[in-house]
């Protein structure tokens, strides 16, 4: 059985309310309060998937080719494929806790009850503006001891789309990156495009955005002083109660 609980908290994420601990649904299940914070200055996260699943599955592996489901997330922010994939594995998912884009420096929080056997936690969300960059947590073993745990996430490149850094499509296999409303005024336009080919077709640590300082031309539609990052790009805080 897959349960998905979404509890939105816009700004009060530093407060773990006492009521959260009363939501334990069974004596065996772990109850997780998960907060994802965007640490970057100018990168948006698309809908976040937090998944507790068995340790023999994984959403992505460094050095392996991305699944089509991961590709859809990394290129267009679409987590539907990953949700049904993990559902079929009896995972427990927290889907889209930010209810849309998670802006720079903002946090999103939600509750996740885990069933027996779902012993590891994974987190993914596309980073915008990038072609196929995503934040990733890969099979973090969920501690059995109650407490507060902090994990910092790196930026990954799905290896499925050339990093041309220009406005375009979020559809898998289509060039460019999607531009949802809030991003539109923050980006340049008319960039001629950087990389035309994929240098590494496996999941890898993202080489970072290059960008330029030309808002109406140049090689990239990315703003080079704002829409870059250094790792880590996200902080995940997990409060575990039994």
């Amino acid at each position: 059985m897959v349960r998905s609980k979404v509890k939105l908290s816009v700004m009060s994420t530093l407060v773990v309310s006492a009521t959260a601990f009363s939501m334990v649904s069974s004596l065996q299940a772990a109850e997780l309060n998960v907060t994802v914070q965007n640490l970057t200055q100018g990168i948006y996260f698309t809908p976040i998937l937090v998944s507790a699943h068995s340790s023999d599955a994984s959403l992505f592996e460094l050095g392996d080719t991305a699944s089509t489901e991961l590709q859809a997330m990394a290129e267009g922010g679409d987590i539907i494929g990953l949700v049904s994939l993990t559902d079929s594995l009896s995972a427990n998912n927290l889907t889209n806790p930010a209810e849309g884009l998670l802006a720079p420096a903002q946090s999103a929080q939600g509750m996740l009850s885990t069933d027996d056997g779902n012993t590891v936690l994974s987190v993914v969300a596309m980073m915008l503006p990038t072609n196929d960059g995503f934040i990733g947590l890969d099979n973090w073993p969920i501690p059995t001891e109650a407490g507060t745990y902090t994990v910092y996430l790196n930026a990954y490149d799905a290896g499925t789309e050339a990093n041309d850094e220009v406005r375009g499509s979020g559809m898998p296999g289509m060039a460019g990156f999607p531009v949802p409303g809030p991003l539109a005024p923050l980006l340049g336009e008319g960039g001629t495009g950087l990389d035309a080919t994929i240098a590494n077709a496996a999941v890898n640590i993202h080489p970072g955005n290059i960008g330029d300082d030309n808002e109406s031309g140049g090689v990239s539609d990315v703003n080079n002083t704002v829409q870059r990052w250094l790792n880590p790009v996200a902080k995940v805080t997990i409060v575990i109660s039994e």
Partner: protein
Amino acid sequence: MKLFTNKLRVGLVTASIVVIAGCSDSDNNEDPEIVLPAPVPYTYQVTVTNLTHAQPLSPIAVALHSSDVKWWSIGEAASDALASLAESGSNEALLSNAALFSSAAGNAPVAPGESVTLEISVDDIANAHISVATMLVNTNDAFSGVNGVDLSSLEVGGVYQRNAHVYDAGTEENTEAMGTIPGPADSGEGNSEGREAHDVVTLHPGVVTAGDGLTTSVLSADHKFDNPGVRISITRME
């Protein structure tokens, strides 16, 4: 004679020995004479190592304080005092806060690859928190440090060490332009007026430099940095 004051109560929780004497000769004396033990000092040695390639660190700011003091929070606007440190490298405003138990300040920049060690003490407060902050001076408003680390479980001789991230104060645009950077790469102005940028503290996106496509930048490839920017090591001495 009344020696007992509220101020000392915090320390006495752990100091534990209070000698009460001389109260048998007077039934009227409601304030028994109390001989207090000597103050219990808590002293920490703080070593900051500059891990960057070519970013001198501004003179280090170190403070002991209660859990109520927070020098920065990601997602919230920087205080004026933090903005001053992050834009100009001056630790004066940050350390002049009356709420601090005690503070220590470096007296010179810390060059890349170098370390500096400062000592800081407080009497009778076993559960002090420590903060350390310094600017990467060849930037607009980058800083690094640790933010309110709880020292209550650090034993004498114990060491707490952390490789610290580089933050962006969000108070000055990262133009890297001539005249905006106080470090030796530019010798420009420190503090800029008001809040030009996003006005929230985040992790720093890194410097772009002229060589990497920011045409107005006075910085070169040497000034690039990555996380971690500094290593901070705190040893409890007594």
